[in-house]
């Protein structure tokens, strides 16, 4: 192994590609429409970005351990519906309804993890089944109608989760703070802790990890629960911010979240993951959605660009991987 220069090592990092893409994206949109970087637009974009971002952070850990979760979009919709249905029934307080929704989401994650690790069923099939069960339940209990949410005004829980505040002319929600905290926390967990070592080993070579005494099943179950809980939290935050708890909300989010994670450089097959990359991936996709509209491209064309980004980034990652393995 020859020593590489600092620059070379920086370029070889999996986060380098996404970083370049993000900078490029910002530059292009800003040059085409200067109000793209206005405080108002930044504030608007951030609000929803961090909600999906919370799920993407958890998904990064889960995918590093070699699994993924297609049920996050349905949990996103269901948890908010559950919380508001409980609260509106007048039986429980908002805090209790929140705790109940979070507990149910943890249970959903546990069931996902149990099926995957104990019955050895691929996570694709397990979480696809769970997606239908959870979405179906949300639609059934609400008859398909949105739940009332306006009564959250003034609740301390609502302010803590999505209270808004202004820095200069920039209006931000508390959720931005929670997202930043979660990003730092998950990055620390993955790179600096024993648990992070276990997560990577569980995805990289589960048999070797198991032989060393790593509890692969428990690691994966915990990550399924974390992913479900983050999806529920995001759904609840979103419902309070938009004052809407729609049983259909979150449809398709699972794929957008997985796209964010893989664009950032985390491998679909497990073993290697990067939170920094995921944060970049989150912004790449959300800024694309926002920027396309800002420069006047019809919103319906959005998916063309997203698809192209995914394909392009996958090609880049695969090329870097081959170079890396060749030792150059």
């Amino acid at each position, binding site marked *: 192994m020859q020593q590489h220069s600092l620059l070379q090592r920086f370029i070889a990092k999996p986060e380098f590609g996404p970083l370049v893409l993000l900078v490029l994206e910002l530059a292009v949109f800003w040059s085409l429409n200067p109000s793209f970087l206005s405080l108002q637009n930044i504030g608007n974009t951030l609000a929803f970005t961090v909600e999906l971002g919370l799920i993407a952070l958890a998904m990064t850990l889960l995918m590093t351990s070699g699994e993924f979760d297609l049920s996050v979009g349905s949990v996103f919709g269901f948890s908010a519906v559950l919380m508001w249905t409980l609260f509106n029934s007048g039986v429980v307080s908002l805090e209790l309804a929140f705790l109940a929704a979070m507990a149910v989401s943890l249970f959903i994650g546990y069931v996902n993890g149990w099926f995957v690790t104990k019955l050895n069923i691929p996570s694709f099939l397990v979480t696809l089944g769970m997606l239908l069960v959870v979405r179906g339940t949300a639609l059934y209990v609400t008859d398909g109608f949105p739940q009332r949410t306006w009564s959250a005004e003034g609740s301390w829980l609502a302010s803590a989760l999505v209270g808004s505040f202004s820095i200069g002319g920039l209006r931000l929600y508390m959720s931005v703070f929670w997202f930043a905290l979660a990003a730092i926390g998950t990055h620390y967990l993955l790179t600096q802790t024993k648990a992070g*070592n276990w997560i*990577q*080993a569980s995805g*990289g070579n589960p048999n070797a990890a198991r032989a*060393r*005494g790593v509890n692969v099943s428990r690691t994966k179950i915990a990550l399924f629960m974390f992913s479900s809980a983050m999806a529920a939290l995001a759904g609840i935050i979103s419902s309070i911010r938009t004052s809407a708890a729609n049983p259909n909300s979150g449809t398709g989010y699972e794929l957008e979240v997985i796209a964010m994670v893989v664009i950032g450089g985390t491998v679909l097959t497990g073993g290697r993951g990067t939170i920094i990359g995921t944060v970049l991936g989150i912004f790449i996709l959300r800024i694309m959605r926002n920027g396309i509209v800002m420069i006047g491209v019809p919103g319906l064309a959005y998916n063309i660009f997203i698809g192209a980004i995914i394909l392009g980034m996958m090609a880049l990652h695969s090329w870097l991987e081959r170079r890396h393995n060749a030792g150059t």
Partner: protein
Amino acid sequence: MAAEELVRMENINKFYGRIHALRDVSLRIDRHEVVGLLGDNGAGKSTLIKVLSGAVPLTSGDIFVKGKKVEIKRTTDAIANGIETIYQDSALVPQLSIARNLFLGREPIKGPRFLNRLDHQTMGAVARQLLKKVGITKDIPPETPITALSGGERQAVAIARAMQFDSDLIILDEPTNNLGVAETQGVLRFVREARDTGHSCIFIAHNIHHVFQVVDRIMVMRGGKLVADDIDPKKTTIEQVERVITGEHLLH
């Protein structure tokens, strides 16, 4: 010199369904010895090793470690009893660094427990020391991922790990398969190194020449039975051992 017993297996039987893979195998491994385990394909070598390493449960029989009867039901039981098995390529997590692999499952923690923080410094220092000990003279930083290592270097890391973590018995399953000449010599050197630092080894290889270069004693299996357990490589020729493996010697 009275040899000290390390592992003893008594009347081990293993059935896979109706296939009788191990037939009343009894053997003994002493401290500080490298034992070669030979046999043709299907002779029962792998099954025997899998039983001892906890990869498959035995049907009947007893295993003793340092004179005490032990239950080996899974791989972690074997490791807890000081028995470490190094399979070709499968023992390491390719994406993780050398240091992270060495400490996998026994990571040292620094600072308050709830922070669960890896002690990177200790891991790096120990890894550097170990790599030197197994004779990797090239300057390989402990942060290097396994994917960047050659086959021989990977075996070296796996052996280094077994040596570090108080494994009394290191089982090497075909460690020289697919390796070049220089790398094979390296692996054989690690095996001698392991013995000299107080470990015992069971060395399984198709290549009898490799086995002859490094072992103190040779055991041979045939048809699920242990047919020879004390062949001295210094007093025996490779041809003689080959005849035991194939069963030809019975005809003469």
